């Protein structure tokens, strides 16, 4: 579980996050959605410890700060643009990352399912964009993470690889992992997301199960619901939803919304 409490982040005089509150529950996939420049990347970077919040805290279930190196032992991260040292082979990249976690036996399931073990003997610079993306996915899942952060994960994957990847996300969720996802592909959200955290102008006016979002907005589809949210000023979002910032609530209510 991740608890984001009153997180504020400004770059100089420019406020990007203006008091974000969010609880990411274990065993659920939470999608952060919102218009461009809403602060999604900054929020993810704060959770990863890449960006230092100006105010507020981000903690794990046991109260540890996510920025502590030990907190990242159980973190899997897949960036939007995979990038690796050009002159190392894929296997050398994996060996480097394996060595940083000698206490974890790497999980090669995704490597085998993607069938890229042979290609990873070549230098990264010779690999296609799709293979690099698969390598990035392999790394994210390799250390049996209890927290997965996936930034536009299926961009660049072929349909078969995307399908394999989505099944890996579902399996990790069913095993109890906390999963945070960003994507602009609404069809993907509909398939993968249990909860939606809608971020706009640096705040989260809605966070809750997908079914609740549909109910609150009166929309018949997720697509329509998101458009409704994006076209409404934050103040006009239903009050009940404004107060809903704890996505773990769905679980507490036993609310399966898929």
């Amino acid at each position, binding site marked *: 579980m991740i608890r984001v409490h009153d997180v504020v982040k400004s770059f100089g005089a420019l406020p990007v996050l203006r008091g974000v509150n969010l609880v990411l529950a274990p065993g659920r996939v939470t999608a952060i959605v919102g218009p461009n420049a809403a602060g999604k990347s900054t929020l993810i970077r704060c959770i990863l410890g*890449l*960006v230092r919040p100006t105010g507020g805290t981000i903690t794990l279930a046991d109260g540890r700060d996510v920025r502590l190196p030990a907190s990242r032992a159980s973190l899997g991260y897949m960036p939007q643009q995979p990038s690796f040292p050009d002159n190392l082979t894929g296997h050398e990249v994996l060996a480097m990352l394996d060595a940083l976690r000698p206490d974890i036996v790497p999980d090669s399931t995704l490597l085998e399912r993607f069938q890229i073990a042979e290609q990873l003997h070549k230098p990264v610079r010779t690999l296609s964009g799709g293979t690099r993306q698969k390598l990035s996915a392999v790394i994210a899942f390799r250390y049996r993470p209890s927290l997965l952060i996936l930034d536009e994960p299926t961009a660049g994957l072929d349909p078969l690889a995307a399908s394999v990847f989505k099944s890996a996300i579902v399996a990790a969720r069913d095993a109890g992992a906390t999963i945070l996802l960003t994507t602009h592909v609404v069809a993907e959200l509909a398939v993968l997301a249990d909860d939606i955290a809608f971020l706009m102008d640096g705040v989260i006016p809605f966070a809750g199960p997908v079914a609740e979002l549909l109910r609150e907005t009166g929309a018949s589809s997720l697509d329509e619901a998101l458009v409704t949210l994006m076209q409404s000023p934050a103040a006009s979002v239903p009050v009940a939803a404004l107060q809903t910032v704890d996505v773990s609530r769905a679980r507490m209510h036993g609310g399966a919304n898929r």
Partner: protein
Amino acid sequence: MTAIASGPVGRMELAWIIAAHQSRDVVRKRWVMAYAAGLFVAGDLMLRLAGSGPSVLVSLLNVVLLLIPLIALVLGAASLYSATEFTELLLAQPISRRSLFIGLYCGLTVPLAAATVLGLVLPFVFERALDATTAPTLAMLAAVSVLLVCVFTALAFFVTICVRDRARGLGVAIMGWLGLAVLYDGLVLALASAFRDWPIERGMLAAMVLNPIDLARTILLIRVDAAALMGYTGALFRAAFGTTSGVALAALALCLWVAAPWWLSARAFDRRDF
């Protein structure tokens, strides 16, 4: 849900893991190979044409003073900018920022220093030009060159950490190289000429300490006793401190030039938002 394989690793061990893999990447870069080969060819040609070891060393010194800052600062910075996204991935791993910084710094500096030493020493070995006079001076040239690599890779880190935009950062690196390697001496000389009626010796000595390239030049030229090539500040330096203490003092100042940008870069890396 974690399978246990072995015990935890220490901070320096993590830095070493990063350094080892980064080094492997850096030594395979074409520009690093070209740099080592270029130094080798330059040294070999000079030995064939000039024949004598000490005079070749002085010529090589001039090549080294121009080339090392350029390679370590400009190409080092370019290489670091290219690795930004992978650095972010590494920051999401269970490793502290300081360990990661040490690993990345060593991963760039060690292969560059090794390429420099090999490029400088191998021509003398192949041409059988190492004798009792040449060997100690060549060793000193190699040592000073390694220190220059350490200084300018630290500066490359500082630039890439502080200047987020790649084009602007590379511009700063090129201007830094141009300023320290090319323009600085001319500027100092112009100042010395303009204020020649004033007691400016101390100021000139300070000016020399403020440029690591001047320090490296002075160490080597005091060592080979090439007063004519030492330049104004170098001659002042030797006159003020003598040969032995002059070398020791300049070497100490050069070590401070390694430590200061390294520390500033490490601090900036700890605090930077990626």
